[in-house]
């Protein structure tokens, strides 16, 4: 089987793209589900099937919880963010996200039951930066946190909420972008 680092393209059905965008917009609007961390960030897991050099995303799993404030994960995230995060007015403790281990375990179990492979995670960028108005590329922090993950980092650019876009980067490396094709249903 082709290594994920050698994948040529990723196919995302329109329904999956709609689900991702809907998740991002809901979180941006401050609408939260029961048991969901009340933060205006959206991130989730993408799973599917691989055939030779192509991945097809068949399953979108929005992640509900953020374990950013739970030790020992908090200390790890604080350390990484202090070193690599771009300065911001947002307090450090409110930046970054990390999956709750139990929720991630349950995600893995669901994917195993469905015989799907996990290919990566998505999260949104919502604030334009000087010299980076679209925010459709991984940050240094994204790359550091995805290092050796053997997963794709999918960036959902939501600076213009009415015109979102998606890009995929193997292990969050900007030089390893793989085209994402949104396939009409």
């Amino acid at each position, binding site marked *: *089987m082709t*290594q994920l680092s050698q994948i040529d393209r990723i196919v995302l059905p329109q329904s999956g793209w709609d689900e991702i965008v809907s998740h991002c917009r809901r979180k941006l609007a401050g609408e939260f589900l029961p048991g969901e961390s009340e933060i205006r960030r959206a*991130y989730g*897991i993408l799973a599917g099937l691989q055939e030779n050099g192509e991945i097809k995303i068949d399953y979108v799993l929005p992640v509900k919880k953020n*374990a950013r404030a739970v030790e*020992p*994960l908090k*200390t*790890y*995230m604080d350390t*990484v*963010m202090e070193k690599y*995060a771009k300065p911001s007015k947002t307090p450090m403790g409110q*930046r*970054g*996200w*990390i*999956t*709750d*281990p*139990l929720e*991630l*375990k349950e995600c*893995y179990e669901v*994917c*195993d039951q469905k015989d799907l*492979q*996990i290919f990566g*995670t998505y*999260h949104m960028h919502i604030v334009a930066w000087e010299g980076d108005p679209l925010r459709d590329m991984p*940050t240094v*922090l*994204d790359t550091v*946190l*995805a290092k*050796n*993950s*053997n*997963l794709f*980092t999918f960036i959902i650019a939501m600076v213009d909420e009415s015109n979102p876009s998606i890009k995929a980067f193997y292990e969050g490396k900007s030089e390893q972008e793989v085209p994402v094709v949104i396939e009409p249903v």
Partner: protein
Amino acid sequence: MAKIIIPFPFRRYTDSLREVSVETNTLADCIEALIARYPGMNSIQDHPALLSIFINGKQTKEEWNAVSLTHEDEVSLIVPIAGG
């Protein structure tokens, strides 16, 4: 033989196997045996603070040497995924 469930991103180190069985008495032996068989699995310890271990679905935070395992136990290794 305890059964170890391998997390997705680490299956590249176990020939794509979802689970691996090892002869073991303790959790420490279990992890050691896993890494001995699949050396790439050592990377689960790259950031010890990130590794969560579940035994039969319940998270354990005890010292690995203090956790006894039987042949019926299922060990899940989880390394959280993070982003900026």
